[in-house]
C-alpha cells in the first residue's frame, strides 16, 4: 500500500478512521480489511468502480449496515456504531445517493425528523427554523422551509439532506455520489458549499467514481477496488491517469478501436418529439434528430434530463404527446398499431434498456425464458397452443455460446448471473435478431471491465454491419469513445451536436459541460 497521508504527520488524530473493516453479503466479500483515515478539516475522496465497496464502507461508518469485523474511530476515539443514531451522536452525518426524505413532509419537518427536541413539536419547530436560517446564511444552503420536499428540484433536495446533517451537529459529512443527478451549475453550487464547510473546520468525505470531481475538489483520495483499499494518496500528487489505473488495476484504454463511420440512408428520423410523464409534466420538449444506417449516435447528458424517457418512447414503452417519429421513412407517431413495443420488434427495432434487472430481464426466470422475452409470440417458439420448449432452449444455448455467457447454463435463473453476463444475455437477444435500429441505454453500467470491452466491440461491429444505433449513456467517456455523433441533452431539449473526433476528450467535456449548463443555444 502506498504511503497514506495519515495523521502521523500531524499531531491531531484524524477526524474519521476505519481499521480493518470487513463486510460480507452472502458469499460476496464487499469490504476486505478496509483501513482509511480522514484528516480533520479536509475534503476526502473515496473513489472506485461500481461494486468496489466504497458505499458499503461509508454505510458501515454511518451505522446503516453492520460490519462483520473492524473498528471505527472518530477523533481518535473508538466508537461503537450500531445504528445511524450512534453515528449522528458521534458527529457523523451522511447524504445518501438516493435521498432519504419524506416527500409529503415540508423541509422543516424533514429536518426535524429524529431531532424533534421534545415530545411535542411546537418548540422544536421554532428552534429549528431559527437555526436553519442561520445555516442557510453561513453556507449558502437556501431552501424554502415550508415547501414539501417532493416539490423541490433535486439540487434543493440535496441541500435539505445537508441541512439535516448539519442541524444535528455533524462535524463529519459523508456524501455518496452527490453529483450524479446534478447539473454542472448545481454541482458547482454544491462544491462551493462543501468548500465553505471545510473553511468552518468540517470534515467532508465524498464517494464518487468521477475522476474530474476528485481532482477538482479533494485534498486526499482513497482508491478502492474489489472491496479493498488499493491506495491512499494526496490529490495534488496524483493524476487522473494514475487514479484510473489504480481503480481498474491495469492500464485503461478508454478509446475503442474503430474505423470512421460509413453512414448510409436515414433509418430513424425524429422531429418535434414531446413526451409527458404520468403527472403531465413535459419530460422531452420537442426534440429532433436522425440516425443513419452504419452510425452510432450518442446522447449525452446528466441523468434525469429526458434521455431515459426518449429511449423508452422510441421503443414503444411510453406514449408520445406530440411530434413525428419516422422509421425508414414511415411515420409511426400517430399509428398506435405500429408504435408499440410489440410491433416495433416486428419492424426490426432492438432495445437494450437502461436497467437490465428491472426492465430487460425477469431475474426470477431462467435464462432460456429470458432469451425470448418480447419474442415469445414468434412462430418459431410456438405450436398451435403449446410453446416449443426445445426451440427456446436451443436458441438460448446458441446465443450463450456466441456471447460467451458464463456459466453456460440456460436453466439458471437470470438473477444468478453476474452483471456483465446478464447484460450479454440481453444484448444477445436484441442483436441476434438482426435489428435495423438498436436502441441502447447504459450498456455497461455495473459491468466489469472485460465485459465492457466485449460489449463495446460488439456494438461497433453491429455498426459496421450497417445498422443504426442510438446510444444513451451518462458516462461521457463511453459516449465519446463509441459515438460517431454526439447530441447533448439537457432539461428535455437537445442542446447541440458535437463530433467526437475533432478535439481532445478534455475539450469536449468542457464544451459538453457548457452546453449542459444551457449556456450555448441549440445549434
Amino acid at each position: 500500500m502506498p504511503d497514506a497521508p495519515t495523521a502521523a504527520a500531524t499531531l491531531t488524530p484524524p477526524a474519521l478512521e476505519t481499521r480493518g473493516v470487513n463486510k460480507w453479503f452472502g458469499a460476496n466479500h464487499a469490504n476486505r480489511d478496509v483501513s482509511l483515515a480522514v484528516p480533520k478539516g479536509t475534503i476526502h475522496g473515496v473513489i472506485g468502480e461500481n461494486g468496489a465497496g466504497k458505499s458499503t464502507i461509508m454505510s458501515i461508518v454511518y451505522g446503516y449496515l453492520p460490519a462483520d469485523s473492524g473498528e471505527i474511530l472518530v477523533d481518535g476515539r473508538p466508537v461503537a456504531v450500531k445504528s445511524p443514531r450512534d453515528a449522528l451522536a458521534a458527529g457523523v452525518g451522511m447524504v445518501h445517493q438516493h435521498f432519504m426524505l419524506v416527500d409529503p413532509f415540508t423541509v422543516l419537518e424533514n429536518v426535524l425528523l429524529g431531532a424533534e427536541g421534545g415530545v411535542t413539536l411546537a418548540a422544536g419547530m421554532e428552534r429549528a427554523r431559527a437555526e436553519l436560517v442561520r445555516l442557510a446564511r453561513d453556507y449558502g444552503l437556501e431552501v424554502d422551509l415550508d415547501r414539501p420536499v417532493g416539490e423541490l428540484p433535486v439540487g434543493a433536495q440535496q441541500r435539505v439532506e445537508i441541512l439535516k446533517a448539519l442541524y444535528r451537529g455533524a462535524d463529519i459529512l459523508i456524501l455518496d455520489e452527490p453529483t450524479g443527478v446534478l447539473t454542472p451549475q448545481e454541482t458547482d453550487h454544491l462544491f462551493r458549499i462543501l468548500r465553505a464547510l471545510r473553511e468552518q473546520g468540517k470534515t467532508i468525505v465524498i464517494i464518487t467514481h468521477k475522476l474530474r470531481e476528485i481532482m477538482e475538489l479533494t485534498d486526499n483520495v482513497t482508491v478502492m477496488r474489489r472491496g479493498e483499499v488499493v491506495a491512499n494518496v494526496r490529490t495534488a500528487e496524483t493524476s487522473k491517469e494514475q487514479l484510473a489505473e489504480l481503480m481498474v488495476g491495469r492500464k485503461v484504454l478508454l478509446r475503442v478501436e474503430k474505423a470512421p463511420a460509413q453512414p448510409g440512408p436515414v433509418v430513424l428520423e425524429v422531429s418535434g418529439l414531446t413526451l409527458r410523464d404520468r403527472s403531465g409534466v413535459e419530460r422531452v420538449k420537442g426534440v429532433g434528430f436522425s440516425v443513419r444506417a452504419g452510425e452510432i449516435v450518442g446522447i449525452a447528458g446528466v441523468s434525469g434530463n429526458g434521455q431515459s424517457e426518449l429511449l423508452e418512447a422510441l421503443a414503444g414503452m411510453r406514449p408520445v404527446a406530440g411530434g413525428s417519429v419516422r422509421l425508414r421513412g414511415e411515420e409511426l407517431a400517430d399509428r398506435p398499431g405500429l408504435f408499440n413495443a410489440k410491433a416495433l420488434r416486428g419492424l426490426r427495432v432492438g432495445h437494450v434498456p437502461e436497467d437490465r434487472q428491472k426492465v430487460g430481464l425477469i431475474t426470477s426466470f431462467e435464462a432460456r425464458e429470458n432469451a425470448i422475452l418480447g419474442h415469445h409470440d414468434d412462430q418459431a417458439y410456438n405450436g398451435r397452443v403449446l410453446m416449443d420448449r426445445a426451440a427456446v432452449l436451443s436458441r438460448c444455448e446458441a446465443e450463450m455460446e456466441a456471447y460467451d455467457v458464463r456459466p453456460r447454463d440456460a436453466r439458471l435463473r437470470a438473477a444468478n448471473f453476474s452483471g456483465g453476463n446478464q447484460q450479454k444475455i440481453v444484448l444477445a437477444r436484441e442483436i441476434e435478431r438482426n435489428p435495423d435500429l438498436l436502441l441502447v441505454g447504459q450498456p455497461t453500467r455495473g459491468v466489469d471491465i472485460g465485459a465492457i470491452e466485449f460489449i463495446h466491440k460488439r456494438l461497433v461491429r453491429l455498426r459496421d454491419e450497417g445498422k443504426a444505433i442510438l446510444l444513451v449513456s451518462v458516462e461521457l467517456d463511453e459516449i465519446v469513445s463509441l459515438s460517431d455523433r454526439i447530441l447533448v441533452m439537457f432539461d428535455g431539449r437537445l442542446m447541440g451536436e458535437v463530433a467526437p473526433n475533432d478535439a481532445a476528450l478534455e475539450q469536449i467535456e468542457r464544451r459538453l459541460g457548457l452546453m449542459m449548463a444551457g449556456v450555448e443555444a441549440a445549434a
Partner: protein
Amino acid sequence: MDEVFLAILLLVDATIRVATPLVLAAFAALYGERAGVVDIGLEGKMLAGAFFAAAVASSTGNPWLGLLAGIAASVALSLVHGFACITHNGNQVVSGMAINILVAGLAPTLAYAWFHQGGQTPLLPSSARLPQVHLPGVEVLSPIPVIGPIYREIFDDANVLIWLTVLVVIATHWVLTRTRFGLRLRAVGESPAAVDTAGISVTKLRYQAVIITGVLTGVAGAYLSTAHGAGFVRDMTAGKGYLALAALIFGKWRPWPTLFACLLFAFTDAVQVRLQGVPLPVVGVIPVQFIQMLPYVLTVLLLAGFVGKAVAPKASGIPYVKER
C-alpha cells in the same frame, strides 16, 4: 313535530352506538397503516377482544378486568402480526387473514370448552357490563326545547366507552399532527428509509403502532360484548372489522374524514333497521340487503376514483428491507 324530532334524535343516538366500535377499529388501523403496516386482521382482533372481555367479565363479574383482558388478547394478536410482518417481513395481508380465521375458530372453540353454552359466554348481568355515564341536570334541562331532548337522548347515559372513543378521536388528531411520535409515525409509513437513516428504529416504531392498533381494537371488541351487548356470541363482529377498514380508506387515512366515514356507514345501518319493510316514495320498498352493502359499494367506487381518489401511505404493505 316533536315526534319527528325525537325520532331523529333516536336515529342519531343509534348511529353513535353503531359507529363507536367502527371508529375505534378504524382509528386502530389508522395507526398501523400510517406506520406502513396494513391490517386486514381487525376483524379477528376485535372478535378476540370481544370474547376475552366477555369471558373475564363473566368469570370475575368485573367488566374493567374484562376490558383489560380484551385489550391484552387483541394486543397479543397484534404482536403476532408484528412478529410475522415486521420481524420476518411476512406478507401483511396473509397474516391478517390468518388472524381472522384463527380467531373465528378460536373464540367459539374456547367459549364452547369453557362455558358449555354452544360457543357463547353466559349472558352478562348489568353489573358485569361497562357502565353508562349518567350526566347531572337531566331533569333540569329536559323541559328546555331542543337542547333538553338532545342532552337527554344523546349525551346522557352514553356508555363510558363512547366517551372514551370521543377522546381517542381528538387525541389521535393531536398526536398525529403535533407530537414527535406522530411525525415519526407519518414518516415511517411514507419513507421508512428516511426514518432509519435519521437514527430512529423502524422496527420499534412499527411495533409501537401495531400495539396501539391492538389496544384500540381490543376496546372495540370489549364494547361489542360488554357495553353494547351483554356477552359474547359467535361471529359477533359480523364484518365490522372490514367495514372499519373500508371507512379508513374512505376517509383517506386521515382522522376527521375517517370519523365521518364511520358515522356515514353507521348511519346507513341505523336507517336500514328502521326502513325494513317500509315503502318509500317513488322507489318502494328497498331490500335491506341493498342498504347493507352500500358502504362496500361506496368504498369500491372511491377506490375506483369515481368519488375522489384514495392514496395510501406510500410504504404501507411493504416490509422494510435495507438497501445495500
